[in-house]
């Protein structure tokens, strides 16, 4: 049976190529990885996702030879590394595991310095690198450099784990369920931070998860794996959601493929709704004017820096008896940033008082509103686009078929 995951010409240069990679564990009847061939393009996050025990971790760990393959070839950056000295290889590949594995007896700075020291950098360069990386993962160097891992929260440790993996500036990163052991809220935040970071550093990343939602959110490309690390589908998240290649894939995606597609677009990609706003120092009459001029039931009160501070409706003004408008009404809930996914926004707005999510920039300044109509529109738009793309693919395939037939006959 073929077990191929190749990419078409539109993808970038191939950074990692696994060729007929196979792993048999002693005394296990079936191979954990069964002749896998997989191409991973440069600068992309490729997700290996599949049910527990399907061979994701084994596949990933063969890339830096933590696990030695039984047979097959591993090519990284056009170099066959199947028999290279593993220590040398690993210093060029960032490695993050779920349990993080920070060295508890070393400070954060010492932890991050591990690979640069192995690479023989001088002390000044290492020092500068530590500060740079701590800044990158939003941790103040002055505060955290000399702390020990046990003095950090789970989310902070994970950040340090990522910083440590980036320290030698590797072209390739391997991440095995890096956010798996973290509470959902922090996980969301870390995922967003990581995507922002990746947009800057453009590493080639192999990312293992068993969570299809995480795969869709994080992946440029997803390999859905069945037992024996057999590729059920290797494609972009859009294509996988739109055109699952088999029942296995469809089952694995589960119900609500349209909702999952909301993970693919971000608040910054859509046109935000205008909403009536009033300044905090205005009075109730100004609120009523603003409401009259629009079709909305409530106005958003903004402070001097244009940050949301209150929802006020006409009823609130009447009941308020002339109190300041930032003392009546409801606090502004459901606040999202532009890089949040529409799924994040939807989650926020369904529990919000006025069923809308407020969009603010990194400084908290009001940008606009996302409401349920947006979400509906986005789903409809994505469906149409994806369907068109899938059709186009069909036609191309048929052309190619004809072509090959033409040449062979």
């Amino acid at each position, binding site marked *: 049976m073929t077990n191929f995951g190749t990419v078409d010409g539109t993808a970038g240069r191939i950074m990692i190529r696994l060729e007929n990679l196979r792993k048999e564990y002693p005394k296990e009847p079936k191979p954990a990885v069964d002749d896998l061939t997989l191409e991973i393009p440069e600068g992309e996050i490729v997700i290996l996702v599949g049910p527990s025990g399907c061979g994701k971790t084994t596949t990933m760990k063969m890339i830096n030879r933590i696990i030695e393959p039984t047979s097959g070839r591993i090519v990284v950056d056009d170099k066959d590394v199947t028999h290279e000295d593993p220590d040398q290889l690993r210093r060029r590949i960032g490695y993050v595991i779920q349990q993080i594995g920070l060295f508890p007896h070393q400070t954060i700075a010492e932890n991050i310095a591990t690979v640069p020291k192995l690479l023989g950098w001088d002390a000044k360069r290492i020092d500068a690198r530590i500060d740079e990386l701590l800044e990158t993962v939003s941790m103040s160097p002055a505060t955290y450099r000399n702390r020990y891992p046990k*003095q950090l929260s789970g989310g902070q440790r994970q950040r340090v784990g990522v910083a440590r993996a980036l320290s030698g500036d590797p072209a390739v990163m391997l991440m095995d369920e890096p956010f798996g052991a973290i509470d959902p809220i922090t996980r969301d935040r870390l995922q967003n931070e990581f995507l922002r970071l990746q947009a800057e550093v453009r590493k080639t990343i192999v990312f293992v998860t068993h969570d299809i939602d995480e795969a869709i959110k994080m992946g440029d490309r997803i390999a859905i794996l069945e037992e024996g690390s057999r590729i059920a589908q290797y494609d972009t998240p859009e294509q996988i959601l739109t055109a699952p290649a088999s029942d296995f894939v469809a089952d694995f995606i589960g119900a609500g493929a349209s909702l999952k597609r909301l993970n693919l677009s971000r608040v910054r990609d859509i046109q935000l709704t205008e909403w009536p706003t009033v300044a905090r120092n205005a009075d109730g009459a100004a609120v009523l004017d603003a409401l009259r001029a629009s079709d909305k039931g409530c106005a958003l009160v903004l402070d001097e820096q244009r940050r949301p501070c209150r929802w006020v409706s006409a009823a609130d003004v009447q009941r308020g008896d002339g109190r300041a408008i930032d003392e009546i009404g409801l606090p502004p809930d459901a606040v999202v940033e532009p890089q949040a996914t529409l799924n994040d926004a939807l989650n926020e707005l369904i529990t919000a008082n006025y069923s809308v999510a407020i969009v603010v920039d990194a400084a908290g300044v009001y940008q606009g509103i996302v409401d349920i109509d947006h979400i509906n529109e986005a789903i409809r738009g994505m469906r149409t686009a994806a369907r068109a793309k899938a059709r186009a693919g069909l036609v191309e395939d048929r052309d190619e078929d004809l072509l090959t037939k033409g040449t062979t006959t």
Partner: protein
Amino acid sequence: MTTSTEQSLGAEATAPEMGMAPIRREHRTVASYLLMPVFLALVCLGLYLYVQSKELDTIEQRALNASRLGTAGWEHVQLTIVSTIFVILIAIPLGVFLTRPFTRRFRGVLLTVANIGQALPTIGVLALFAVAFVFIGFKAAIVGLVAYTVLPVLRNTMVGLQQVDENVLEAGRGMGISKMGVLTRIELPLAVPIILAGVRTALVINVGTAALATYINAGGLGDIIVAGLSTNRLTVQITGAVLTAVLALLVDYLAGIAEDVLRPKGL
């Protein structure tokens, strides 16, 4: 300095995600470090006054003069220290060797064997007398003491190395640290507290067992006790026994300080 750190910690703790695990560090005050030496000095003083208050006969006078006590005490210290050094030199490398991956299959059995010595102090006596069949004297006593206390140190070395988090080791290997580097820079430092606890146990056992070395002509404070027993002089027996106990407590105290100093920070 301290206040500013505390303030910054307090400020961050407001965000739940920033919540810090409590820092557990030994906050031993200088006073608590002085407690044991002062106590031991008082015990010695009490012993001195007690002996002074007695009318000593010639036998007692011969047994309890300063130079005799000094020699016996010094011999005892030598027996303890030399045997413990040998134990460290043998047990720690052996423990490292026996915890390498290729021994995985029979490691359980090894640990059980290493555990046997723990519960049975009398084995120490047996070891001493077994050696005495072959030869006697200081060296024989050292062989006997080492043979016995190698086991607790070996056991603690193995347990100490095995309790190191697999993930920490995998992270180390995964970053390209060599096997030797992982052993010396990660495994051993992280095992230090447990290994040192084993060495401390060995030291104390050695002080106790060395009191029996007198039976194979190796000297030590046992000489005093046995002299008291054979001549039926209670004062002499008490002096020997109390000095042995003081030495054991002192050694334990010093080993405790060594543990505090050598324990890696951050654990």
